[in-house]
C-alpha cells in the first residue's frame, strides 16, 4: 500500500521548485523606500483609512480598519511617514484605496511582546485576536480567518495545508522546515479555537525534509498527524486536500466545517502563532521570488506588505531593462495573476512573485476549436466537463454552465494547460461562474 494519500484525477505537472527549495528564509534587503498598502487585501469590505497624509506611523501600527464582520484590518509594514491615501493600482488590475508610506532609512525591528499565558485566553478572545491582527488566508484565498472559524460548534478536524502544489512556490516548504515549532504552536492555538479532536498536516512528498521535521516535532502530540501526500496538482486545493486527508468529499455548496474540517494554510497558521503569542499583526510575510533562471537571487524572503513588485525584483538582482516580453506573476504559476504594472504591491495572500521568460509566455499558435479529445475531462479534479463548460460560457448560456456545475470549478487551470487546441478553457469557465452561481442560488431557494 502506498504511504502517501491523494485524490482522484488531477495531474502531475512540472514542479519548477529547484530554484528556491533549498534557499533559507531571509529578509529582503534593502527595505523599500516606499510601501503601498491596499485597504482591501481580503475577501470582504474595503476598510477605512485610520491615518492621513503627514502622519507618522511605526511598523505594526493599525492604519486601516472597519467595524464589519467581513473585513480585516491592515497595518503599517514599515516605520515612516504617510505620504498619500489614494487609489493605487494593484496586482489584480483594479485600483484600490491605499495608504502610501515613505519609509525611514533606518528600520527598527518590530517590538514584539510575548504573551505567555495564551492558554488562559477564551476561545472568544482568541477569535477576536485573529480579527484584530488582520489574519487572512495567506495561501491565496485571502478569506479572513475569523470568518472561517466563526462557527460555535466544535469542528473535529484541523487540516494544515502544506501541500504547496503550485509550481515554483517554496515559501510554505521553507516555513515548515525552518519554523516547525511556530507552526505546531499556531496549530495548537487553532486546535483550541475550533475545539478540534485531530490535527492533520498535509505535505506533498517532494518536501521530505519538512515531513521529517514535522514528524519529529509532533511525535509527542497524540492528536497531531503528519500526512504525506502524493505530489499531484492541485493537491493544495481545499476540497482535494480534504478528500486526500479524510477520504470525505465535501458535498457541493457545503462549507468545509459541514464535513468536520477546517483547512488552514501553514503560513497563516504561523501568522496566527505570531499574532497570538508575540502580538505581532500581519504586516509582512514570506514570499517566494523565483523564475526559470530569470531571477539571479531567487529565494524565499520576508517582505513587508505593500512592497512593490519593482522593488522586490530589483532587490533580487533582476535588471528591469531586460524583462520586455516577460510575464510577472503574483501568486502561483497555475492560478496567480499576471500584473500589468510593476508598481503593484505585495498583499497578505501573495505566495510568490514570479518572473516568467518569453519562451514560457509566447506559445506558438492561436486557439482552435475543441476537438473533444477529453484531456481536460480526464484530468479535471472536480470531475467536470471543462470542454462543454467552456463552450457554454462562450455561448453565454449560463443555465447550461450551471447545469454542468460551473460553480464547482476549482480554477486550477489544468484544462487550459492540457488543451491541444490551446483554448482558454478555465478563463471561460471563470467568466461564467458568477452568473452560474446566481442561477444556482435561485434554484436552491
Amino acid at each position: 500500500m502506498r504511504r502517501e494519500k491523494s485524490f482522484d484525477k488531477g495531474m502531475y505537472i512540472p514542479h519548477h521548485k529547484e530554484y528556491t527549495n533549498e534557499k533559507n528564509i531571509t529578509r529582503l534587503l534593502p527595505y523599500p523606500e516606499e510601501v503601498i498598502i491596499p485597504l482591501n487585501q481580503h475577501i470582504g469590505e474595503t476598510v477605512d483609512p485610520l491615518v492621513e497624509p503627514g502622519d507618522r506611523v511605526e511598523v505594526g501600527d493599525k492604519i486601516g480598519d472597519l467595524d464589519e464582520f467581513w473585513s480585516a484590518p491592515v497595518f503599517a509594514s514599515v516605520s515612516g511617514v504617510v505620504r498619500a491615501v489614494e487609489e493605487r493600482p494593484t496586482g489584480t488590475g483594479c485600483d484600490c484605496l491605499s495608504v502610501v508610506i515613505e519609509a525611514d532609512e533606518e528600520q527598527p525591528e518590530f517590538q514584539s511582546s510575548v504573551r505567555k499565558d495564551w492558554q488562559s485566553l477564551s476561545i472568544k478572545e482568541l477569535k477576536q485576536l485573529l480579527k484584530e491582527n488582520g489574519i487572512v488566508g495567506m495561501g491565496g484565498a485571502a478569506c479572513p480567518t475569523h470568518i472561517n472559524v466563526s462557527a460555535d460548534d466544535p469542528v473535529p478536524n484541523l487540516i494544515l495545508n502544506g501541500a504547496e502544489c503550485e509550481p515554483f512556490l517554496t515559501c510554505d516548504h521553507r516555513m515548515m522546515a525552518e519554523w516547525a515549532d511556530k507552526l505546531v504552536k499556531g496549530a495548537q492555538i487553532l486546535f483550541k479555537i475550533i475545539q478540534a479532536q485531530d490535527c492533520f498536516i498535509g505535505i506533498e512528498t517532494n518536501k521530505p525534509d519538512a515531513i521529517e521535521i514535522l514528524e519529529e516535532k509532533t511525535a509527542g502530540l497524540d492528536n497531531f498527524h503528519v500526512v504525506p501526500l502524493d505530489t499531484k496538482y492541485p493537491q493544495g486545493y481545499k476540497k482535494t486536500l480534504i478528500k486526500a486527508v479524510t477520504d470525505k468529499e465535501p458535498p457541493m455548496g457545503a462549507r468545509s466545517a459541514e464535513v468536520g474540517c477546517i483547512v488552514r494554510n501553514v503560513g497563516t497558521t504561523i501568522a496566527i502563532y505570531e499574532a497570538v503569542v508575540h502580538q505581532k499583526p500581519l504586516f509582512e510575510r514570506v514570499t517566494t521570488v523565483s523564475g526559470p533562471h530569470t531571477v539571479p537571487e531567487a529565494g524565499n524572503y520576508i517582505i513587508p506588505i505593500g512592497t512593490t513588485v519593482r522593488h522586490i525584483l530589483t532587490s533580487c538582482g533582476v535588471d528591469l531593462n531586460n524583462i520586455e516580453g516577460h510575464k510577472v506573476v503574483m501568486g502561483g504559476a497555475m492560478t496567480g495573476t499576471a500584473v500589468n504594472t510593476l508598481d503593484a504591491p505585495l498583499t497578505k495572500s501573495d505566495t510568490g512573485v514570479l518572473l516568467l521568460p518569453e519562451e514560457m509566455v509566447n506559445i506558438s499558435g492561436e486557439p482552435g476549436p475543441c476537438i473533444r479529445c477529453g484531456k481536460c475531462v480526464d484530468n479535471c479534479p472536480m470531475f467536470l466537463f471543462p470542454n462543454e463548460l467552456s463552450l457554454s460560457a462562450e455561448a453565454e448560456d449560463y443555465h447550461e454552465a450551471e447545469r454542468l456545475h460551473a460553480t464547482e470549478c476549482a480554477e486550477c487551470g489544468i484544462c487550459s494547460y492540457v488543451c491541444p487546441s490551446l483554448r482558454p478553457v478555465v478563463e471561460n469557465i471563470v467568466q461564467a461562474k458568477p452568473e452560474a452561481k446566481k442561477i444556482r442560488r435561485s434554484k436552491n431557494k
Partner: protein
Amino acid sequence: MTDNPDIVVTEAPHLMTDGDTTLIVMSDVMLALLPAALAGIYLFGLNTLYVIMAAVFTAMAVEAVCLKRVGSFQEVLGDGSAAVTGLLLALTLPPQISPGLAAAGAAFGIIIGKLFLGGLGHNIFNPALVGRGILLAIWPAAMTSYTSPVDGTTAATALGGAEFSYFEMFIGNIPGSIGETSALLLLLGAIYLFFRGRIGWRIPLGYLGTVALLSPLFGADVLIQLLGGGLLLGAFYMATDMVTSPMDDRAKLLFGVGCGLFTIIIRELATLPEGVTYAILIMNALVPLMDRYIKRRAFGEVS
C-alpha cells in the same frame, strides 16, 4: 513612478501548455496507421499508393481551399485533421479502386461530413466514414470488388465466405481493404495510440467484446468476425475518433457496445457486408444524446 517595461498580461494558468497540439494529436494517429498503410502498399501493389495519396491530398486540398488556407504547405496542412480523414478513408477502400474515386470520397467526406457541419470539432459523423458511405451508395460495385494479395486476381474476402487460416488473417495476407487486413499492424498502432493517451480502452473493448459475444448467436466464427473485415480498423481508429465519440467513460463503453451490436446485425442480416461503416455512423448519431444524458458524478455531487 511609471516607466513600466513591456510586460505580458494574460489570464492564468501561466504554465500555458504541456506542449501538446492538435497537429501532434493528428500526427500520432497518422503514425499509428503508417505500418498498416505500408503493408497495404506492399501486399496489394502500387495502385494502393496512388489511392492513399489521392485521398490524403484531396482531403487536405479541399479543406484548405474551402477555408481559404492556401498560403503555404503549413497552412494547407493546418491541424492535420483533413490528412487523417483522407488516410483513414483510403485504408477502407479496395486496393484496385481508381484513385479518382478515392479523391471523390475524400472530397465528399470533408465537404459534406465535416465542413458543412461547422468544421473540426463540430461534425457529428466521422468524415472518413461519410466519404466511404457516399462512395458505397454511388459506386457499390467498385467498392466491394477485392483482390487477392497473392496473385492480384479478384477474390472473395474472409467475411464473404472465402477460407483463410487464422494466421494469414492475423498478419493480413488476405483480400480486403487496403489498410484493414493486418490485425498485427493495426494492433501495434493501437497500442501506440493507447500509450500516447489518444484512445481509451472502453470503446474498442465494448465494440470487439460485443461482436465476440454475439457472433456465436448468429452462428458466425468469432475470429473471422474479428479479423476478416474492417472491424479492427473501425474499432481502434474510427469509433475512437475524438470528435464523434462520447465524452463520459460509461457512455464510451455503451457507444462501443452499440457499434458492436449494429455491426453484427448488419453483417449477418443485410445484403452488403458493411457492418462497421454503418454501425459507427449510426452510433455517431447518438453521441449528442449520450453526451447530454450520460454524465459522471461531479466532485461532491449528491443525487
